[in-house]
């Protein structure tokens, strides 16, 4: 198994190299440059030229790419044009927020998705099954941005039940060590701060978790249906194995295989959904910063952040494959 993992990691290298090429030239193909966004409406052509020279944007593209890649290999991702701080620092500062949001979204997606899918399968063909399927279809088709907007408008702006933006009420004076606000609140014993952070997570996590939730419902349902009709389940039943054992050890465990894959893939995809969700809820994670970087043509941030996300996605995929082989020994043999 270690060899498989090693091979997979080696395979990552050419993949990421290809990605850097695509990424670099895509970012440079965006119309308008960072200089104008930085200098504003009265930038003189000399000032624009000066900024471009300063950042090396006036050099041939190939040369810029090679320089960037060379620095990248030394761990230097450059500095954000907008904030002047190293890209790595900007990423590290915001990443905990996005992780916290993604975890909350996955808790909702998995916590609701698997039971609901299982429940629908158990009631196969009944109206409750049909409505679960219909609901999940709505969940898959509704755009994240739209859902986020509606949730916020109804529950934050109109009803005032939940906060509309940010990670914590600005008036709360909380101490932060890890930058995971919920965790920080629990560690420092500032439980009101932790609870406030949880409240701030609810709406964005629902918005972000809806698509994975809907997908998990469908996959779980389909998978459970398939497994419960399998020969070995029928044999087990004929042999008189208790319903409890049958469900727990045979049906659910075997039905979980495709679900685990789905959860893994969806976790990777959450980051792209976070760009929209974080923007709507002014949630200070990597998503909202990335959205702003696109707007201001902050090339180093765009390149660096997308690369980080790609590596992350690849690692999650690897993790999925490993856990897959843990659940199903047959995969290891193959």
């Amino acid at each position: 198994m270690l060899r498989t993992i090693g091979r997979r990691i080696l395979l990552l290298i050419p993949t990421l190299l290809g990605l850097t090429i695509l990424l670099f030239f895509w970012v440079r193909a965006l119309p308008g440059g960072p200089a104008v966004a930085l200098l504003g409406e009265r930038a003189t052509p000399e000032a624009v030229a000066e900024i471009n020279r300063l950042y090396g944007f006036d050099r041939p593209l190939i040369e810029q790419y090679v320089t960037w890649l060379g620095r990248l290999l030394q761990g230097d991702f450059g500095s954000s044009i907008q904030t002047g701080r190293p890209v790595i620092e900007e990423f590290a500062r915001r990443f905990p927020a996005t992780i916290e949001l993604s975890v909350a979204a996955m808790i909702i997606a998995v916590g609701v998705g698997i039971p609901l899918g299982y429940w629908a399968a158990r009631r196969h063909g009944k109206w409750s099954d049909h409505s679960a399927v219909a609901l999940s279809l709505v969940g898959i088709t509704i755009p994240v941005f739209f859902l986020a907007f509606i949730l916020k408008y109804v529950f934050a702006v109109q009803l005032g039940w939940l906060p509309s933006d940010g990670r914590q009420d600005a008036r709360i004076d909380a101490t932060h060590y890890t930058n995971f606000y919920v965790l920080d609140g629990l560690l420092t014993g500032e439980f009101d701060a932790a609870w406030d952070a949880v409240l701030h997570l609810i709406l964005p996590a629902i918005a972000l978790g809806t698509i994975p939730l809907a997908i998990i419902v469908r996959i779980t349902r389909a998978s459970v249906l398939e497994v419960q009709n399998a020969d070995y389940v029928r044999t087990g039943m004929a042999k008189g194995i208790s319903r409890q054992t049958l469900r727990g050890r045979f049906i659910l465990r075997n039905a979980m295989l495709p679900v685990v894959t789905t959860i893994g893939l969806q976790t990777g995809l959450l980051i792209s959904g976070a760009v929209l969700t974080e923007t709507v809820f002014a949630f200070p994670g990597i998503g909202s910063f990335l959205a702003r970087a696109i707007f201001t043509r902050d090339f180093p941030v765009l390149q660096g952040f997308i690369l980080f996300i790609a590596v992350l996605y690849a690692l999650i995929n690897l993790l999925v494959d490993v856990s897959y082989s843990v659940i199903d020994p047959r995969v290891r043999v193959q």
Partner: protein
Amino acid sequence: MLFTSRRRALAAVTAVAISGLVLTACSSQRGQEESEAPSDVDTTFVFGASGDPSSLDPAFASDGESFRISRQIFEGLVGVEPGTADPAPLLAESWEQSEDGLSYTFQLKEGVTFHDGSAFNGDAVCFNFDRQNNFTGVAQSASMSYYWGALMRGYADTGTSIYAGCEATSDTEVVISLTQPFAGFIPALSLPAFAIQSPTALEEYNADEVGGTEEAPTQSEYATGHPTGTGPFKFDSWEPGAEATVSVYDDYWGEQGQVEKVIFKVIGDTTARRQALESGSIDGFDLVAPADLGALEDAGFNLVNRAPFNVLYLAFNQAAEGLDDIKVRQALTQAIDKDALISQVLPEGTVAATQFMPDSVIGWNPDVTTYDYDPEAAKALLAEAGYDESNPLEILFNYPVNISRPYMPNPEQIFANLQSQLEAVGVKITAESNEWGEYLDRMQGGSDHGIHLLGWTGDYNDPDNFVGVFFGAETNEWGFDNPELFSALTEARGLKTEEEQVPAYEAINEQIAQFIPGVPLAHPVPTLAFDARVTEYPASPVQDEVYNMIVLSE
């Protein structure tokens, strides 16, 4: 109002239902409207900022969000008269200009201290001016020390700086000298970029170490975490992307006011800022979209207008075909009904522009030539220029999308309105729109554009900051070479006093009106929105808004 209180009541009930603990903290400020006792006032003021400051060192900033925070922490020698753009004493109690107009003697306020406890005096003033003049390398770039470079026209090592030096003749008197007259010097000092910072803190936190590499300039330790001034608020913390916090400086020389803590919460999206106000997570925000004004007012929020210190214009690029003909430019001018534009798409209180600067700026000409709305005259002029129904004037109309500026809150609507007005006199319009950054690149980086929308908000009360910026030299934006106008502007910039400036700029404004480089359209009113508990806010045309002047009622 009814609607708001119902929502608040609902929020309060739900708060109790969900958690007695946390939400009461937020709803207590919103729920107890009846208690007016000062002890019940929440003295934390939360402002919704559209972005992070680019630097906490005002010498290295030129953007609104940086200046908004700077103005709480720092003060300069010169401030502005409240509610106007006119210079007024601040850290300098008075000043005198020498006969030759080259040096200024400032009498400084006594008993002022910086937030680090060090004393404000003549040496501190000179330290700050010398520091900026001695910037080198990356620190000189326009994205860093824009204002010093632009106003002093260079640095010590470039040999072009008009700053001759500073001498502290005593603790309370300094003399600042220039190498050539600059009538806008005093008003320019009201910019936060010329604020006086603590020399001790600047040195301790290596404020001049901006750099890293030339390819990746970075801000100094000082500029990211230790700004130290003499203002009513001292810096507390900055969490980039989330918020920046300042709190009262106990030894402030002036009136401290009611607000004890200010949080600038970053909310990038315009709609999200409005919703944050509606849901109570912020107390106010800037640049309300015209479309939201009515709804916010109906819901009981306080709207505060700034006196407009800006101009929105329609530019004619004379490098484009047809637009180099003065008859065509005059025809287009007469085809535009500014009043209709204002009443239909611009915020209430907006005034029509007659020249490329608002009337509060020195040198605004009350008798300037104007071209009244007259579509028939426009058609006749177009015919004289050789354009009629069979051979209509075809022009490209450029405008930006997805952007809101104080002088141009809704470019798409402004464009649509003007397009129909121009088409009514037989002009054939080809519309082209771009995203903001690309748009600016296109208008200013090349000549591939026709007529276009743009504008400007002034930094301080000086005509050169308006007409000088627009028409001081040949540019891609306007595409004309008018040596007479260029030299008039260069001369006017070098005048010694305001008395000399007034007639010079009045003449320049008339010259521009005759030449018609474009149409000055309007001076749109920028609006701020606040929670009902904010009863007073010191709105300023140049955004010199210091929060010790805010009055809160809940």
